[in-house]
């Protein structure tokens, strides 16, 4: 058993549990601060340090194993600002980012956001890319963001990097990634009813015949 400190209070828990499991072992029935339990939803943002090391660290509680003498608190919510926009009516430009998130110019370059990212993303770089209007760079670098909110919580200037990055990715997806011709073609063929008779035939086929068809279908190599 090891000692951990949840919001300053000591609990004994077995070694090897994740922080979430340790909270539950300690008797907390969680409502906030937990979602997917697998590192994808960002609900479980956690700040901790160690009795002998004041350096703050940041983690997803579902993906991090408790350590002896850990002092931790969850950050299930942070009052981060978000701009409202109609994606169909804005342009993929640096100016739009600046208009929607004017605070971005206040970035001090302190790198607190990057240091706090439990996904190890280059958050501050994303902010300078966004400031330059390099939407593609932000999209690629920020892609693995789970929007846990730690970067916004740590920014001394009140920026909300994860929402700025989301704006960039949405702009990229809608306007900058090249359209897929085969997708468009297929949508038109379907609308023109090109597959209707074949589908109708399959729908009305006896199970035996359908099984036969299934067996005979060719399988494209990967």
């Amino acid at each position, binding site marked *: 058993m090891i000692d951990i400190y949840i919001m300053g209070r000591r609990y004994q828990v077995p070694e090897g549990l994740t922080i979430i499991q340790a909270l539950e072992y300690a008797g907390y029935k969680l*409502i906030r601060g937990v*979602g997917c339990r*697998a*590192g994808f939803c960002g609900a479980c943002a956690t700040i901790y340090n160690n009795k002998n090391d004041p350096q703050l660290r940041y983690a997803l509680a579902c993906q991090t194993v408790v350590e002896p003498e850990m002092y931790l608190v969850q950050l299930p919510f942070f009052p981060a600002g978000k701009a409202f926009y109609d994606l169909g009516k804005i342009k993929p430009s640096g100016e739009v980012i600046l208009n929607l998130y004017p605070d971005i110019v206040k970035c001090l370059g302190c790198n607190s956001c990057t240091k706090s990212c439990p996904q190890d993303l280059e958050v501050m770089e994303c902010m300078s890319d966004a400031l330059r209007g390099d939407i593609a760079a932000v999209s690629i670098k920020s892609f693995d963001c789970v929007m846990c909110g730690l970067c916004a919580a740590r920014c001394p200037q009140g920026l909300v990097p994860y929402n700025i990055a989301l704006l960039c990715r*949405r702009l990229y*997806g809608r306007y900058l990634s090249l359209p*897929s011709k085969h997708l468009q073609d297929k949508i038109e063929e379907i609308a023109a009813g090109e597959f209707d008779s074949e589908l109708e035939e399959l729908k009305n086929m006896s199970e035996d015949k359908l099984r036969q068809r299934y067996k005979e279908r060719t399988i494209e190599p*990967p």
Partner: protein
Amino acid sequence: MYPTEMEKSIAKLEATRERRLKETFPRLSLDEIESLLERFHPDFWAEGTRQLGVGPNKGDRAPKELADLLEGKSYIDPDQIDLGKIDYDVDVLIIGGGGAGASAALLAQENGASTLLVTKLRLGDANTVGAQAGTQAADRPDDSPAIHYLDTMGGGGFHNIPELVEVLVKDAPLVIRWLESLGVNWDKEPDGSMHELPGGGTSRNRMHAARDYTGLEEMRVLRDEIRNRELNVLEFSPAVELLLDSNGRVAGAILLDLETNELSVVRAKAVILATGGSGRLHYQGFPTTNHYGATGDGLVLAYRVGAKLIFMDTMQYHPTGVAYPQQILGQLVTEKVRTLGAQLVNTEGEQFINPLETRDVVASGIIRECQERQKGVVTSNGQCGVWLDSPMIDIIRGRGTIARELPAMVRQFTRFDIDITRKPILVYPTLHYQNGGIRIDASGATGIPGLFAAGECEGGVHGRNRLIGNSTLDIFVFGRRAGKAAAQWGKGVKPGSLSLEHIHRWQEETARAGLSSRPASPRLLPDYTRHEQTLASLTT
């Protein structure tokens, strides 16, 4: 880092790799598949299910854990609730904040309805966000909705409802474009064409992905769109009961504020259930890939107002859940690892199943390898598993493929000191998906007037086994359809007075059937606190 014992088995796997790279394990015939499933698939373990004693599916089988809840008591005392005091009054109430609920809300709004979306945790805390491998749509030149139809029927054991599969495959390319127009970043080739991979049971390469964060990308975009349109959302407010009106139509719901325990009354002209799956009921003691709130609530709510469920005796066990390390036991190792080329290998370093068979078949193959053939690898916790030979991917497709295509997987294992670009992954089946659910028609209607359903909580589309990539398709196809149909239905409705009479009737019926001692339901959240159970085996 793997313990020495496991490293010994890895050495055998490495010794056979060069030979295996040239080998394709033969696919099983339909007859071989049927006998493998009957002997090893958990659906066929007789002690796992029982007959329902009450309600629209009386006499049908369901997993025991779910059956208890379907027969369960209401949380509320209908006589204690003042239905004269309406807290929220809207055209369409959407219950559930995953991909299905979010799409339904957007489409209901576009079709002129006022909406309220209520959800149990935060908007987007859902199974959707965990989807990694991708979304199916037949849009390449040598693919077609008809081939997609055939694959889906075959995967479902030919039990799927044809009308539902038809709209699933026909709407699919539209859904991909809709998501892109909202700003979803699909993986693409330099010329803009979609980068598509095969999946277990798909005869064409039609998996659309966003790295291995597909569901996260879909969900964060939809969530942002809901916020931009300023649609009403209530978080931490699960529905605990549906309301009917004096004409027997579904007319709203009772919500529970999880933090203050206050109840509130929503009146609506139509209700859409989008509550997702039930992996957190841990059928037959399996760990699960599902999010914390996946407790099958929508099934319970629908059942109590008389909606029929379909295929409730079949669950999907994903073949490749994590078997080591223990901290993340049962979490998902995406099928994309296999679609990119990784083979499944036993402790002797030999293949035993084609890795791209459908999930039910692969899962049964792994269970057979561990139980009957005793060729699994057993960890120090006693957990059996087989190897998923991930390093093959970079050998076949070039160095850097794993890092590029599977960043979430790499990150997850790196956190536990395992480098999947160099070492294989130990896997065992995990509870993943609810194949069946509330029976719907092609518009998402349930047959109970005013009640619609979309996503993992409905059933019929996937027959008895869902294919990879067809669920994150289903949620958008049927979420959009239900949103539109509910908005249109609402236009013709003049609500009668609200009633909880059906809860009285339910209580009488369960009492007559001798089931009064069933637990209160819906379950809402699992209880992992120590007094219940703390074994890490269930709580990952």
